């Protein structure tokens, strides 16, 4: 026990401040205010890997490490789509995951947002469309915002998550494919 405590003390607090604004981002404070006005620091995310190479997942995992400390900013991953506000989708949608993705989306309560993460999910990436992949997530379910990158860095993911809540409130149960900005 002593060694654990000593190690914790030596490690200290690694968490970094949330990303500051960049060219593309609206001022971060506003996003955070929006986030809080909608969710009161309780944004819940459900992740679906719709056929990714697992690279994007490595960076989503990184969000939980002490440096990015996602939970510290009021955002958490949940185990069921029924508890989620945001669906975070990775991968070019494989035909073998198409139905599971649709069902997960349908299981989420309104209002709901979809964030497509990684070049594969945004523009099919290196995989294209063939007998086994449908390509962009937006071709399967409505997408509200996207995060580019292969894989996107944790900072880009964090910005994307904060950004999504700054969007206009999504159309409830819209079936139309929205712009993927």
């Amino acid at each position, binding site marked *: 026990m002593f060694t654990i405590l000593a190690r914790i003390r030596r490690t200290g607090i690694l968490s970094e401040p949330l990303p500051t604004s960049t060219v593309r981002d609206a001022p971060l404070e506003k996003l955070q205010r929006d986030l809080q006005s909608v969710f009161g620091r309780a944004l819940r995310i459900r992740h679906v890997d719709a056929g990714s190479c697992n690279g994007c997942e490595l960076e989503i995992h990184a969000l939980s490490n002490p440096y990015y400390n996602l939970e510290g900013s009021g955002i958490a991953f949940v185990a069921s789509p029924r508890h989620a506000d945001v669906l975070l989708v990775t991968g070019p949608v494989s035909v073998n*995951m198409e139905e599971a993705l649709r069902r997960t989306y349908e299981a989420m309560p309104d209002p709901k947002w979809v964030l497509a993460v990684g070049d594969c999910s945004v523009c099919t990436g290196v995989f294209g469309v063939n007998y086994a992949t449908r390509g962009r997530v937006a071709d399967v379910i409505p997408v509200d915002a996207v995060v580019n990158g292969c894989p996107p860095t944790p900072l880009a993911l964090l910005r994307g998550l904060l950004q999504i809540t700054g969007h206009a409130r999504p159309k409830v149960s819209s079936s139309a494919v929205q712009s993927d900005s």
Partner: protein
Amino acid sequence: MTDDPLKPEDLHVPANVTARRVVVDAAQWLAGAQRLRDQGAGLLTLWGTDDRDRDGVFRVFAALLLPDRVVVLEHALAGGSTAYPALGHLFPVADRLQRAMYDLLGLRADAGDCRPWLRHGGWPENIFPLRRDVGATQSYAIHAKPYPFVPVSGDGVHEIAVGPVHAGTIEPGHFRFSVVGEKVLRLEERLGYAHKGMAKRFDRMPLQEGHRLAARICGDSTVAFSWAYCAALESITETELPRRAAALRALALERERIANHLGDLGSLGNDAGLAFGLVQFSSLKEQLVRLNQDAFGQRYLFDYLLPGGVVIDLGARMIHSMLDEVAMLEQAVSSLRAIYDDHAGVQDRFRDAGLLSPELARAHGAIGLVGRASGIARDARIDLPWPPYDVLPPGRVLHSGGDVAARVQVRFDEIMDSLRLCRSLLQTLPEGPSLVPVPVAPSGRLGLGLIEGWRGPVLIALETAPDNRVGHCHAHDPSWQNWPLIEYAMIGNIVPDFPLINKSFNLAYSGHDG
């Protein structure tokens, strides 16, 4: 072929390791596989090609891994036939590989499980997408049928279905548990959800671009797969890789091993109830990938390798930072190891969980990290060394406990050895270029790249087509061998231990599904 299937008509195969090819008929296919098995070979992978446009036949290939070389059996199916002799009775891994080959190419092994494996209804039963008559971007409506899981009956037996969407951030797969109370009687896996039609995508791609796709077969093993692809292409084109480039690739490969092991050790601690472990190891991993960013311009090295070398050379300042990091990690990992080893609660969860006995591991052909935790002393970097491992031999890591605890120990040992290798690589980095041009490849040549990634040996079998394009590219992840073993390792364990046991194997979904 004479009675010895390996001589004298075998052909040299361009590869980064010693490799031969033997052209066989149906009887010799079986006899050759049997003979090689008797010599200690394991089946690494199976694939097939549609050569009807060239000489009117389909071909099947089997790559067997011997302690000191790879042997590829090549069998042309006579007279337009689509059947070939099954190898499942010799090598259990063949069963799923054969099912996959049928789904993609319509070539049927003459025995074994006939259920679809990669085809979940996303393309019609009578369409075989790897055949040349199926267009590169052709797609189909889904007609899914229920998958016939093997039923288990008995008093109080019920089923738990998990996936393909899981509770955590992990890849898609389905697990069907038959349980009594909490105890698992049987686990049956269903994979293929992340199948992206890799081989079709590779088809006719410019050879000089294929490494980018290879790097995305399995994101956590991007260095291993891109190296395997580059090695196959460089062997075919007889490109001599500069020693500096080889050393930098090895540095990247060892850093990939360390990063994945650090991540796994954190998650395993967490799954055993020690969140402290996750915090500590995930911080170390973050530091490592940040230094990757500084040194190589990317955190996960997706596009660090390219045919002929690497994208960025390493300057003196970065070498210095990496040496400092090696020392920091050695110290940190040793002290965390002592904490894990002494923690009664963690050890209680690790010990005896998910047991894969050495006998079972041997009988089922376990490879890589999982094999080394169950007494199988195989490591391609040591057994079939290619530069720079020919002059820088890794230490052999071996445990025989076969449980979660043993797989944890293998990871600790391998991190320490990889850190040692990194230090040597950094201190003795050869002078010279880090990238050389790769000439145009002759068409119709088969080359192999075999690289011991962090999970085990990954293989790329690359066949060239005219105009410097890919004719066929088959990728193999060692998870094919080890996935079926989780089904055995779970028997008699409780369902709540599945995440821990599964994590201790940490097998690839995307890498497997292709």
